[in-house]
């Protein structure tokens, strides 16, 4: 019996190591309910035991609202800054790469919402810059 338990825990660990993240995007026409669905999905996924990162990639960000963040905190939401990407040249080919590891970006620029969902905001365009 002991061996079976050991085998099982080994199997679990192997599976955990090989688990891939799931990346979901929600799109659709304005007013279709994208943001309500995104926010609710994020929190329900978190309640199902997943570590959830929600990214608001809308230039009119409202995801904080449907995630249930207090409106008083909206002004303190940090957007991701410009310059998080750096050019990396490999074999003469230039690519853009994150300048910091993913987890560092999350811990520096995200806000914790109900059910421990971490919210990241895409940087906003400035008025008059196109």
């Amino acid at each position, binding site marked *: 019996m002991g061996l079976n338990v050991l085998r099982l825990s080994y199997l679990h660990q192997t599976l955990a190591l090989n688990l891939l993240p799931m990346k*979901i995007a929600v*799109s*659709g026409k304005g007013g279709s309910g994208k943001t309500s669905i*995104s926010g609710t999905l994020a929190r329900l996924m978190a309640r199902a035991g997943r570590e959830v990162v929600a990214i608001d990639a809308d230039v009119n960000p409202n995801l904080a609202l449907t995630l249930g963040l207090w409106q008083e905190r909206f002004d303190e939401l940090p957007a991701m800054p410009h310059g998080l990407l750096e050019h990396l040249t490999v074999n003469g080919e230039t690519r853009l790469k994150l300048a910091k590891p*993913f*987890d560092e970006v999350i811990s520096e620029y995200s806000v914790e919402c109900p059910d421990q969902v971490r919210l990241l905001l895409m940087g906003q365009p400035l008025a008059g810059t196109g």
Partner: protein
Amino acid sequence: MCSNHSTVRGLLKEVPAGERVVIVDTGASPEHFTRGTTEFIDVMLVVAEPYFKSLETARRYYGFARQLGIPKIWVVANKVRGIEDQAAIEEFCRHHDMEILAWIPYDASLADAERLGAAPLDHDPASAWVNTTSLIVERLLEPESV
């Protein structure tokens, strides 16, 4: 100028292994497709309402997602008021070879939540809208779904 989109794209490309879920709420414009922001997504949910302009947008976005090579693309039918709405969406999606993942009913409690600026889940956790949305979570978390 496109660095906001590039940052999100770069971030999605480098999500580390593990049991994490990343959910991206995109803008209403197709910019996130044309700029490749959502190129590294596994599942694209295209939300459609039962009226032609919304379905037509869904059809275009579904096509963009196919062009980007996103592995799993589904329509989520939202604000469905009855059998006629359902038939209209079904017919449109069948005709354009679009797969439907879930049916979310029209729910007055969602409209109330929106008017109050509250999260649907906090405003009325037992609503039909929340219940059907939780079915999407179950479907997506099934081991063989993605």
